C-alpha cells in the first residue's frame, strides 16, 4: 500500500500533471460560474461550500481518470496485478495517493475561490478541514473503485462520471452542508448528524472498495 502511494506521489511530484490539470479545470469552472450566474450574487458565504464541492466534483473526476490512465499506459496496471500484494492494499494505496492530490487541489482551490468570488463575512473554523477531509475520503473511495473499473472499458471518460455521480449524491449533500458550516462558523451541533453521515459513507465505501478490488484488478 505504501509502495503504491510513494510511487504515485513520486510521479505526480515529477510531472505535476494531475494537480495542474485539475486546478486549471477548476479555475475554468469558477469562470463559468461567474459568467453564467451573476458574480455579485455569489458573494454570500452560504454559497461557497456548494460551489466548492461542485467544482471539486468535476475537476476531481478528471484527476481520478488521469490517475488510472497513468496505470493503463504501457500496461503497468497488469504489473500491479502480477505483484504478490493483496488487491485490497493496491486499492488503499491508490486511494491514498488520489486523496493526497485531491486534498492538495482543494487546499489551493478554496482560497482561490474566496479571492475570485469576493466572498465576504467568512468565519472559518476547525470544522472546515474536517469536512473537506471526510468528504474527500468518500469521493476518493468511490472514485478510485469506479475509475479503476471504467479505465478497463472502451468508454472510460464517459463511464466514470456516469457511475460515480449518482453514488456521490449523499456525499455531496452532506459535504457541501458541513463545508458551508465550517466556513460560516456555524456551531458543530448544527451539522453533527451530517458529519456522522459522512463518516458512515467513508467507512462503508472504503471497506467495500477494499473487499471488492479483487474483482476489479484483473482484466
Amino acid at each position, binding site marked *: 500500500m505504501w509502495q503504491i502511494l510513494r510511487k504515485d506521489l513520486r510521479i505526480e511530484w515529477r510531472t505535476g500533471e494531475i494537480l495542474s490539470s485539475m486546478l486549471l479545470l477548476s479555475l475554468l469552472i469558477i469562470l463559468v460560474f461567474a459568467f453564467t450566474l451573476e458574480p455579485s450574487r455569489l458573494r454570500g458565504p452560504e454559497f461557497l461550500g456548494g460551489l466548492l464541492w461542485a467544482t471539486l466534483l468535476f475537476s476531481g473526476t478528471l484527476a481520478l481518470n488521469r490517475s488510472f490512465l497513468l496505470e493503463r499506459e504501457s500496461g503497468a496496471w497488469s504489473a500491479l496485478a502480477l505483484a504478490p500484494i493483496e488487491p485490497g492494499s493496491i486499492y488503499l494505496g491508490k486511494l491514498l495517493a488520489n486523496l493526497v492530490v485531491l486534498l492538495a487541489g482543494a487546499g489551493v482551490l478554496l482560497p482561490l475561490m474566496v479571492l475570485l468570488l469576493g466572498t465576504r463575512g467568512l468565519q472559518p473554523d476547525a470544522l472546515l478541514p474536517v469536512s473537506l477531509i471526510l468528504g474527500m475520503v468518500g469521493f476518493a473511495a468511490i472514485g478510485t*473503485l469506479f475509475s479503476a*473499473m471504467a479505465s*478497463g*472499458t*472502451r*468508454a472510460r471518460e464517459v*463511464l466514470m462520471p*456516469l*457511475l460515480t*455521480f*449518482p*453514488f456521490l*449524491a*449523499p456525499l455531496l*449533500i*452532506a459535504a457541501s*452542508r458541513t463545508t458551508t458550516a465550517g466556513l460560516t462558523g456555524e456551531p458543530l451541533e448544527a451539522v453533527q*448528524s*451530517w458529519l456522522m*453521515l459522512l463518516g*458512515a*459513507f467513508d467507512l*462503508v*465505501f472504503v471497506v*467495500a472498495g477494499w473487499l*471488492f478490488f479483487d*474483482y*476489479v484488478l*484483473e*482484466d
Partner: protein
Amino acid sequence: MSSKTENRVSHPWRDAALPLLTGGFMLAALIMIFFVVPNEKVQGVTQRIFYFHVHLAWMAFGGFGFVAIASAWYLKTGSPRADQLALANAEVGLLFTTLVLVTGAIWARPIWGVWWTWDPRLTMSVVLWAVYAAYIMLRRLGRGDEMITRYAAVLGIVGVLNIPILVLAIRLWRGVHPAVVISEDPEAGLKDPTMIWTLVIAGVAMALLFTWLVSLRARFAAIDDELETLHLEGESR
C-alpha cells in the same frame, strides 16, 4: 445446460399459473381502484394512484436488492444464471422506478401544484434511477465480456450499500426545510376497509407482475447467452 433428454419440459407454474394469477389479480386491482374503493377524504380521487405507486416503488427497490443478491451469487460461483437474473432484476427494477417517477409526478401535480418537487421519496427514486441506468449502461458496453459482467456484479452490490446512506442523507436534507406540509386531518388516510383490501390486492398483483417480467427477461437473457455459445461453437467447428 442440463442433461435432460425429454423433448418437452413442462413448467406449469411458469407458463400457466404465474401469467393467469398476474392477469387476474391485476384486473381485480384495477376494478377495485377505479370502481369500488371510495375516495380518500383529503386528497380525493388523486390518492387512488397510490395503490400502484407505493407498490411499484417497493418492487423496484426489492428488485435492486435482488440485483445485489444475484451479483454476490455470480461473484461466488460464476454461474451465468445468476448473471442473467441480476440483469433481469436491474432492467425491470429500472422500468418500475421510471413508473414510480411518472406516477409520482402525476400525483404531485394536483396535490402540490407542481410536477416535480424535491420530496425525499422522489429524490431518492431519481438518484436510484441514475445508479441503475449507469449499471445497465455498463452492461450494454460490454456484452459477452466476462470482465464487464464482473464489474457490473461489483456495482450491483455496492449500489445497494448506497441505499441506506442515501435514505438517511435525503431525510436529513429535506428535513431541514420541509417543502410541503400535508394536512394532519384525522379523517385522512386509509380509513375504509376496502382501501386496505385494494392496497393488498394491488400489492399482490404488482409482485406477481414483477416476478413474471423478471422471469421473462431472464429467459431471454439466457437465450441470448445460449445463442452466443452456439454461434461460437459453430464457428470453431
